[in-house]
């Protein structure tokens, strides 16, 4: 098994795990719209009309990215979007923390104002979790080509120069 092969299988696992995370996060919000709206409102960042749009728009983006990752379609693009989302989420949680709010991030459904006990630990956990997800996404930006993917099926993944996993560049027998 070459390094390239190994990375492709690792990328497959990372892709599917990240897909599951994004689908879970998105569907949990879409299926509980009232709760999702409360979660967005609790950040006290947007005016009410924008809160409504974020409450439905954000989970839709999450689900779409989740589907792309699951299919392995436009993997690098999906990974970039995921990274961008994580940066926004971390900024949102940090801003709530700095402003002294005590909220649940509503990352996987739920959300809203919560008792302040254990606030710092909760915020740190949420930010740490997002950093882990971001690390997974960054792996996929670096190594987007993976097995069992539509990218591979449509032939794009083996383009020269497109992919860091390209066997022509990284082929080393092991």
């Amino acid at each position, binding site marked *: 098994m070459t390094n390239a092969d190994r990375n492709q299988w690792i990328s497959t696992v990372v892709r599917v795990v990240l897909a599951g995370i994004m689908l879970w996060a998105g569907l949990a919000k879409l299926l*509980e719209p009232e709760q999702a709206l409360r979660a967005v409102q*609790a950040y*006290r960042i947007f005016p009410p009309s924008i809160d409504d749009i974020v409450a439905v728009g954000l989970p839709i983006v999450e689900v779409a990215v989740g589907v*792309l990752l699951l299919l392995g*379609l436009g993997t690098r693009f999906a990974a970039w979007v995921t990274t961008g989302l994580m940066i926004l989420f971390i900024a949102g949680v940090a801003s709530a923390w700095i402003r002294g709010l*005590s909220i649940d991030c509503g990352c996987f459904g739920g959300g809203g*104002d919560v008792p302040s006990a254990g606030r710092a630990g909760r915020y740190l956990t949420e930010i740490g979790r997002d950093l882990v997800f971001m690390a997974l996404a960054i792996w996929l930006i670096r190594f987007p080509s993976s097995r069992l993917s*539509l990218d591979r099926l449509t032939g794009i993944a083996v383009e020269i120069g497109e992919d860091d996993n390209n066997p*022509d560049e990284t082929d080393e027998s092991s």
Partner: protein
Amino acid sequence: MTKQDPKKARQVATQQAASRRTRTIMIVAVFAVVIIAGVAVWAAKRTPSNPSASMPAGVNSDGGVPVGTATSPVLDVYEDFQCPICKGFEDNIAPVLDQMVEAGQIKEIYHVMSFLDINLSNDSSKRAANAAGCAQDQGMFFEYHNEVFANQPATEGVGYTDDQLIQFAETVGIPDMTRFKQCVADDTFGNWVTQMEINSENSQVTGTPTLFVNGKVVDWSQASTWNGVLTAVQEAITAAQ
């Protein structure tokens, strides 16, 4: 794909451009399907089958607690149970307003806020607000609300213990104390408390007590005594009648 003749390289480039186009179309298709399906699911789920489930019985659709049988003028009262000036308002102004409510001259709508938890680094406003919701659920918001303010700690930030919140309910004679205790322990109306706070912020209420008469905020900033505030409130009510 090592060294190739120019013709073959051109062919490969054309194929790659085609597959890239295919992929872009597929990505756009995925987004289109998810957006349509997502909006459909959201629209279907947006209106919960039982919106009042998480709200105390008898509150308005926006969560406000109505008091009195009159229809106009409407006084919207915004308070936080930990706010010392609200206690001043309750001690000095509210008795006059309560008489007007009883006489059927005005209607009051209470909006329970909880933003002071952030300033005071505790959760007493939220817990007291939830307990007031528990009292409202048994038809006794008004009595309970008065009892909490009557017993507000002299030092701001001391807050209320759950035992105190339950004691207040016993004092005012909440009919089903078992249910009340459970309601306090479970934070049954926590979502309602959050919604009340956010609705208040959306109504541009940033401090308590705040009073609206028929949707118009009562400006008592020039008053230096509670009597002055009372005059301002009474003038606003007279103007609205």
